[in-house]
């Protein structure tokens, strides 16, 4: 449960605002971090903390692209393919990335490690092509650099995946 496990963080979130409801986005991030994605139970937990109906948490989660109500890979790769990036090869980069991972647009690799998605402008047009991996920016990318990153992440993930029994 978030309330027990992250009591300090939750208190800090609520301390920022005169109205609890303002904390809903921070709490959704927290729940997503804790559970990997926003399950219905996670939404209920957040709603309970904020004192709103779970429907409202569901609504907020659905409005924003950085909340996921579906399972995602351990690494969530979001590639900007908006115009400024596309002018510098983002579409090609994205296509090659999908091909390298062997997934369709929006897909997740069979090992559950990587989910790839296109996203709208990330305010890094001067460093295109770029993507965010679990919300951290990777910029000035080439497909080679991306491949290197992916292999690094694969290695990083390995011991953990085995412990989790491949989950």
């Amino acid at each position: 449960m978030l309330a027990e496990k992250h009591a300090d963080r939750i208190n800090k979130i609520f301390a920022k605002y005169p109205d609890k409801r303002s904390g809903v986005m921070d709490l959704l991030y927290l729940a997503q971090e804790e559970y990997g994605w926003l399950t219905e139970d996670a939404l209920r937990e957040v709603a309970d903390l904020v004192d709103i109906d779970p429907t409202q948490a569901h609504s907020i989660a659905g409005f924003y692209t950085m909340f996921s109500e579906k399972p995602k890979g351990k690494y969530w790769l979001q590639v900007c393919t908006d115009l400024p990036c596309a002018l510098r090869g983002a579409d090609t980069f994205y296509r090659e990335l999908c091909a390298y991972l062997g997934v369709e647009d929006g897909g997740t690799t069979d090992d559950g490690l990587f989910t790839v998605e296109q996203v709208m402008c990330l305010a890094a047009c001067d460093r295109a092509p770029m993507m965010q991996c679990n919300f951290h920016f990777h910029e000035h990318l080439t497909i080679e650099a991306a491949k290197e990153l992916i292999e690094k992440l694969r290695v990083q993930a390995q011991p953990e995946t085995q412990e989790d029994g491949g989950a």
Partner: protein
Amino acid sequence: MIHILLRDLEIPDIWQFDTYTANGGYDGLKKAVHDLSPAETIQIVMDSNLRGRGGAGFSTGRKWSFIPKDAETTYVVVNADESEPGTFKDRQLLEKNPHQVIEGAMLAAYAIQAAAVYVYCRGEFWDLAHALEDRIEEARQANLVGDDILGTGWDCDVHVHLGAGAYICGEESALLNSLQGLLGQPRVRPPFPAQMGGGLYYQPTVVNNVETLANVPWIIVNGADAYKKIGTPESPGTKIFCVSGHVAKPGNYEIPLGLTFRELIYDHAGGILNGKRLKAILPSGASGPVLKATDEVLDAPLTYESVAALGSTLGSASFILMDEDTDMVWAAAKMIHFFKDESCGKCTPCREGTYWLDKIYARLLRGEGTAHDLEMLEKVPNQIAGVTLCALGDFAVNPVLATLEHFRDEYEQYIHQPEFGPEPAQAL
């Protein structure tokens, strides 16, 4: 070259509290709280003729002066939801010169005696936002933020609020809803944020862009007159131009308003990538009309007024450059797809209109476009423009209407000779 904002170019460590203060940082705030009344602070900013850098170009001082004097609780909200394609200036400011933004925000807060400052960072600025919290903590430790600021008895804390991926939250009333934990959809206005009932928690609120606020410490320290000596009388000060796309040196360029397009693109940004010819310019990201790169355009000065005279808008000064090989129908399709994805869905014309336009562009790019589609590209934008709840609808029609105006032949080619069109873009 004066850098009022991108001071990291001269002082790379200015993001550090000690470096910032060693270089005059927080002098503006100290001056204001010790020597100026809130009203005097507003007056200086008003006299400086600083105009909002978020796109609309409204007088910052006037905006502050709208806060009712008898308001019990007021807020300052820093709009750091920088999401316009081609815009990345606020990110650099927050990353490289964050204390100046904090100081600017605190000056705004002092001017309206705000109860708190909220910095609404777009969610994708995840790392940046967390670093910003550390910077705020430094200021808090130095008694520049928080309780009893500089011993004056004035309390005002600064908090970072993370968005989560929604362009519409850059629209100030949607941003306020989002900050309140509501759906990030725009509100009916009036009441405007500065008015009772229109702001954060329905209290009078100043919402300012990051770059706007970053100007304020300099103005308070150096005075309105000094500021007005930079740039043009109507648009004083420097402006950060974000240059991206087919450009040799993409990046942010802080220059006084009034230089020409040509100077910005060729002198500062190194010209066009691979020495190609410049075909089209989007001077304010995806939301302003595209300009054909004629000599007339290239020799025009970069001011709000002259860009408007050319039929576009300077907006947030996000220059997306496109070279001679760029397929303008494809570019318009990209932008329409963006707006369709980012339409919040609240009002009918934007929700349905962007969906419709996106369908038409998808068909064009598949080589299945018809003369009827072209007719619709002329008709549908006019059904959207001017009747939507917020400006997103008006923005969304610009890529269509402006590309049709300047590059109609490319559309004709898609319809009549689709075999000569480029590879369909997978993004669509």
